[in-house]
């Protein structure tokens, strides 16, 4: 009797009615909400990196690394004589995005695809919450963000680039020909201070986004401007 009395008083076991929904609330608090917080952060990084990818690729004419048609500094050439180095836009976006994302999470690796203006990232990496013993809660660490920009713009620019090269490759005066053929949003050398320069029949262009796309960066709306080079030589 005395033992039973001592057990009831000193035992850490709590008798009586327990709070309702403890397991469910623990699950929501430590798994679901915690997972949503981590996904919100992943989405945030993906959005910021997605925008950096847009501007960084535009600066390099759409190539994540040097173009096989040649490059000069950051300027990548889109053609070599009559041969065009067609952009694999999806591949370049994937490469550049992952390269930029690794600055914030070196272990991250996404397969990035596009759907309209959206960027979709899939990863084999799981966000693991709780211990794997025996039950655990895991989330796919993918993302889907809309940076309000369509990479299909590169295809429009490629078509125009081919037209320019075809029409001006044998022109006596390259500048006159380009002035007549190129749309006004194609500028020579720089978008701010246009100036025609030609070196071995190669011309550098700064092309303003035909759709007037601008990307939110550093608290500012930054217009998308493509830097690229075209070779008007016939060799």
């Amino acid at each position: 009797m005395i033992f039973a009395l001592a057990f009831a008083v000193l035992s850490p076991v709590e008798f009586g009615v327990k709070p309702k929904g403890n397991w469910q609330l623990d699950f929501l608090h430590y798994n679901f909400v915690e997972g949503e917080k981590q996904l919100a952060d992943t989405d945030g990084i993906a959005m910021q990196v997605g925008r950096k990818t847009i501007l960084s690729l535009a600066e390099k004419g759409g190539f994540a690394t040097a173009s096989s048609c040649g490059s000069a500094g950051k300027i990548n050439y889109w053609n070599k004589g009559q041969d065009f180095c067609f952009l694999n836009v999806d591949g370049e976006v994937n490469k550049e995005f992952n390269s930029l994302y690794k600055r914030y999470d070196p272990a991250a690796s996404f397969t990035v695809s596009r759907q309209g203006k959206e960027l979709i990232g899939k990863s084999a990496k799981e966000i693991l919450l709780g211990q794997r013993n025996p039950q655990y809660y895991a989330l796919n660490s993918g993302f889907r963000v809309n940076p309000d920009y369509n990479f299909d713009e590169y295809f429009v620019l490629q078509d125009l680039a081919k037209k320019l090269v075809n029409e001006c490759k044998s022109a006596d005066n390259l500048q006159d020909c380009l002035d007549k053929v190129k749309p006004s949003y194609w500028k020579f050398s720089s978008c701010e201070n246009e100036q025609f320069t030609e070196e071995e029949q190669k011309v550098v262009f700064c092309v303003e986004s035909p759709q007037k796309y601008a990307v939110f960066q550093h608290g500012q709306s930054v217009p998308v401007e493509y830097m690229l080079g075209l070779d008007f030589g016939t060799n």
Partner: protein
Amino acid sequence: MIPNKKGVMDDFTDLLSFVLILSLLTFFAWVILRTDTGEREDQTLERIESLRGQEALLDLINSPALLQGKEVSMKEVIIAAVNADDEDIFTEKMQAYFEEKQIEGGVGVYDSVSYGAEEEPTPLLSYEVIIFNEAVIARGKERGALYLTNTDGVGNKKSLVVKLFT
């Protein structure tokens, strides 16, 4: 006389044992079947309220906002305001959100280093609902907190903590 006295003593001992056993049984029943349901219900409601606070914070950071003519999320507004050290834009957007949702409370943004190291860190940015007599509502209980990675952040501002208060 003697046998009668013994009988009375036996009866008395029986009664005493019965009362003792009954008391112990009552005590055990009280301990085991203690039904302080009111207290337990309060605990559950408190946890549900805490969960709602976390959801409110997620709603806040994911809600859309207009900045420089572009539709962005509130977490981007927070990051941009921290990087530009622009308290005005932060206050403007938070005020619009709190008024639209008709909620009271406040938001504090901290760098994660100070947040983890100091007991009462100074926020990089903060917003609190001001009532009519311009007295600031005392910073209440924390409803939720989360980390945000700031890819353009420098030094301690690379990782931020956003806290929602009641």
